[in-house]
């Protein structure tokens, strides 16, 4: 899951939990508010009543009676005024049930005693508490809507903000990990960000890339230097032997010995120049500007290698379109690539086997060239190793020194070609180039 998705999910759920808690707590809150408000109005009303009594006397209410009582139509509120015993004192606000005209209702009642002209009176003002429950449900629903709307708005804001904050990270991933090809560019651009964590990550990645590059270039340089340095001594050996062989009075035994030595030196030379070739390809020392007709190229190779086909009585089927042109390649390298592959197809083939070379569209629609043989095949465990330098997977036969496919691989990489191998033991192998 992406980091931004995770963050959004987390924020959303935490917000939902908070809202839910709030909604559950809402009736209680409303009750609290209501009760405070009721207390407040009761007190206000008490003040009002007392000030009226002060101004107009008790008779304003009593009008001849010695008690007074009044309630509103729906019995939501009531006021009662009655004389009580001298010693009786009260100043409370409390919930209590009252019976008014056969209805028992819950009231919050303010009871207050006061003296007026030697007499003690009790003033009671009541307000029903029942109606507050009616509000709860709609209020809760209303609050839910508003809060949901608010959540949506805040999530949108969060999302944009998260995206802005995380943007450097995705840029680091894109430029440093996804889109960077090995060997990396030497001057890696730093991602502009004010987040120290990202800065640190970016810096560490750049450091790592530089280290890998250094190691890679050193190895490359070593291969190139070592091969170069080997060339001169090999030259010396080779020319000494040539001169020896040209001696007039050389007996047959010595000549044969010298020829054998020359073969060994030639082998050494081939290894060294193979390494040099790979190192030159890796150092971009070839120009890729030629257009090559594939059919002509392959015909040339099969022509050159024809005697080997005859030796093993192999059939070669060349089903390649005569119009196929490989564009912007280096002809020598492409020649080498196909030569090595066909050469292998012959070397590892059985007597009277066959080799098929064909081109066409692959399953994914890309152009590809397939070279199949009917040879000994490659064990699955070795498939990943065959392109490595000096890896010889089949030790039963004289297989050379193991650089042929390494060269193929580096030429393919140099031309951005993909190369795949499919193989079945004792049935043959197919190399796909696309």
């Amino acid at each position, binding site marked *: 899951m992406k980091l931004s998705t995770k963050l959004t999910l987390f924020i959303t759920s935490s917000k939902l939990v908070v809202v839910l808690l709030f909604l559950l707590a809402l009736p209680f809150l409303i009750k609290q508010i209501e009760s405070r408000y009721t207390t407040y109005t009761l007190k206000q009303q008490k003040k009002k009543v007392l000030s009226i009594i002060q101004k107009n006397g008790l008779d304003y209410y009593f009008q001849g009676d010695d008690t007074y009582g009044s309630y509103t139509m729906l019995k939501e509120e009531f006021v009662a005024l009655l004389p009580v015993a001298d010693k009786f004192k009260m100043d409370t606000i409390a919930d209590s049930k009252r019976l008014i005209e056969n209805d028992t209702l819950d009231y919050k009642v303010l009871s207050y005693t006061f003296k007026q002209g030697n007499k003690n009176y009790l003033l009671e003002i009541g307000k029903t508490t029942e109606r507050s429950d009616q509000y709860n449900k709609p209020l809760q629903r209303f609050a839910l809507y508003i809060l949901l709307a608010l959540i949506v708005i805040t999530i949108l804001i969060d999302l944009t903000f998260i995206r802005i904050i995380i943007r450097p990270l995705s840029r680091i991933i894109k430029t440093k990990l996804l889109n960077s090809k090995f060997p990396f560019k030497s001057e890696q651009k730093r991602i502009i960000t004010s987040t120290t964590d990202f800065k640190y990550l970016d810096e560490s990645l750049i450091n790592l890339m530089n280290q890998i590059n250094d190691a890679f270039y050193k190895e490359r340089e070593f291969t190139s230097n070592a091969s170069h340095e080997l060339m001169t001594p090999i030259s*010396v050996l*080779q020319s000494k032997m040539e001169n020896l062989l040209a001696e007039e009075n050389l007996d047959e035994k010595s*000549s044969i010995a010298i020829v054998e030595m020359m073969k060994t030196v030639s082998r050494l030379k081939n290894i060294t120049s193979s390494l040099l070739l790979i190192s030159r390809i890796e150092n971009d020392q070839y120009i890729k500007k030629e257009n090559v007709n594939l059919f002509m190229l392959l015909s040339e190779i099969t022509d050159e290698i024809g005697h080997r086909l005859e030796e093993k009585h192999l059939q070669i089927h060349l089903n390649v379109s005569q119009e196929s042109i490989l564009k912007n390649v280096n002809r020598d390298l492409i020649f080498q690539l196909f030569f090595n592959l066909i050469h292998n197809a012959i070397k590892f083939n059985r007597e009277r086997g066959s080799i098929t070379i064909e081109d066409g569209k692959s399953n994914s629609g890309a152009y590809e060239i397939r070279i199949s043989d009917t040879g000994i095949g490659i064990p699955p465990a070795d498939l990943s190793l065959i392109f490595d330098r000096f890896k010889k997977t089949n030790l039963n036969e004289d297989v050379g020194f193991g650089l042929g496919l390494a060269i193929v691989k580096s030429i393919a990489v140099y031309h951005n070609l993909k190369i795949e191998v499919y193989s079945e033991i004792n049935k043959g192998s197919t190399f796909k180039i696309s």
Partner: protein
Amino acid sequence: MKVLIVEDEKTLAFEMEAFLKKSFYVCDIAHSVKSANENLELNQYDFILIDLSLPDGDGLEILKNAKMSHPNASYIIITARSNLKDRVTGLDLGADDYLPKPFYLLELQSRMQAISRRKFGITEELLSIGQFKVDLPKRFVLFEEQVIELSRKEFDLLSYLLLHKGRVLTRVQLSEHIWGTFVNDDFDSNYIDAHIKNIRKKLNAWAETEWLETVRGVGYRVKKS
């Protein structure tokens, strides 16, 4: 023919000299840019073979200087560096050929012969061998008036042997000439035998080919007539 060998690896320079002497070239050796320039001031040369990496400088400098004092000489660059840039600069500066190390002395000699042939034109268009005549530039073999078809590789092989008449050429030398600097994964020169067999078969249909000898265990030779 006078040759100046500029090569700091002394053993290699001596071997080159020894080999070329047998073909009647007269050689001077220089091991540094300085001694090469001295030699160039004192003598005239037909061939100047230059190694690029020298202890006191770059062989390309010698090439630049020598081109002015010896405009008629032929230049072959010999080097282990052999990257594309050096090759192009060398040829741009007027080198006639470029030979990457390590090379066979035989190959060096035939490059020199090829340059000579280009320069002076071949006096004898047709080389005679046994009852056959070989046209090197036009690449065909004649028996009386009859053209004998040889494949490209077969002709390459035959002409190389002819040009080094009297010398035994090993299979390795022959295959390297035919395949050039191509890097081949394994060493196997059976195909040289196969080609020779074919050449003999094609020519024997018309006349004897005892002049094309097999030297047991070593290689092949065209007998000096």
